[in-house]
């Protein structure tokens, strides 16, 4: 990504390892949840590093690693308009329907 500043310290040029995002499934039946990120030269090393870094205490039964630059995300500046559609649509929630209050098993 950037040119290695290690040169300043009089070192051979090294290409920085790329950034990976780590997702961990804490137990069977649950989704993988973002745990953090790390640097690794390839997917195999990313998985090993993720195991050592994010599951030292049995925090996971499965790990995903994803190259950080492969993730597309919504634009934070347009968050208002992007998430506009559910606004004002309370009728999508069960709590909107109050007349049935007290009716059992509904």
């Amino acid at each position, binding site marked *: 990504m*950037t040119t290695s500043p*290690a040169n*300043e310290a009089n070192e051979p040029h*090294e290409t920085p*390892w790329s950034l990976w995002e780590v997702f961990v499934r804490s137990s069977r039946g649950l989704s993988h949840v973002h745990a953090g990120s790390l640097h690794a030269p390839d997917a195999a090393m990313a998985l090993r590093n993720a195991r050592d870094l994010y599951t030292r*205490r049995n925090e996971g039964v499965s790990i995903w690693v994803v190259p950080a630059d492969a993730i597309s995300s919504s634009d934070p500046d347009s968050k208002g308009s992007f998430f506009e559609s559910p606004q004002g649509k309370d009728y999508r929630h069960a709590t909107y329907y109050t007349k049935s209050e007290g009716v059992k098993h509904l």
Partner: protein
Amino acid sequence: MASQNLQSVPAELSPEELEREQAGQAYFDRIISEDSRIEPRDWMPEAYRKTLLRQISQHAHSEIIGMQPEANWITRAPSLKRKAILMAKVQDEAGHGLYLYSAAETLGQSRDKMTSDLIAGKARYSSIFNYPAISWADMGAIGWLVDGAAICNQVPLCRASYGPYGRAMVRICKEESFHQRQGFEILLELSNGTPAQKQMAQDAVNRWYAPALMMFGPPDDDSPNSKQSMAWNIKRFSNDELRSRFVGMMVEQVKVLGLTLPDKDIRFNEETKKWEHGPLDWNEFKDVLAGKGPCNAQRLERRREAHDDGAWVREAAAEYARKQAEKEYAA
């Protein structure tokens, strides 16, 4: 809170840029006033970004350098159990450094730049790690006092306004409590051992007590950046407030250890409802931060060596990755 506005905005901005900056600032101010969280891609004042970057990278460096005083005792741990525990703790500290470097990177600083700043002696880290660990009892005193002070400092940081920092702190705090307890146990065992062992424990507590108290940073009236950090919800409590709480906890715990704290001025102030302690040597603190502590040179030299010695591993891994990718492409 809007008072810090615009000081960070460069002079020549086009009207559109200025409008964008102002809208960004207004959004930022609202998030902070709602005690919500700022995330990496949000607009943030340049001073906020810089403050965080400095704090988080220094914290990361502290975890990394902090491995050294204890790594020093791994080969000399008194039993296999103690060796395994110490290795797990040191490994955790490496992990803490990595969580924090990741958080700092979200602010736009590359990992390599942080690494090279550290080994070039351009970056700061906690002064505490520039003191030597000269006996096995120091492993106890470090866990109990140093990790104890770190926990006290870090628990409120779990609610820091910058999302990635808070999340890293949550993970770290979960792991730190084992660190403090294992240190406490080391001291307790020594304290219940032979008179010489008990003396060794007391000596370690005597040496680590004042440096641990100084980990909370300079007194409030000499901590110019604290106010702004608190206004930004990065810091939640002042240095003196946290230090006082810590003293209150230690004063009780040291009784269980059957040891004493080397401070005859500790008292609970009934009026302020705060714990007070004796004077600390802030000149020593400044000297150690400025690189004149007993181990600064050694710590940096060791870090540099480790980095250099690891170069072939990084190269080999990168080359292996390149070849694998080539193979995959060919297949």
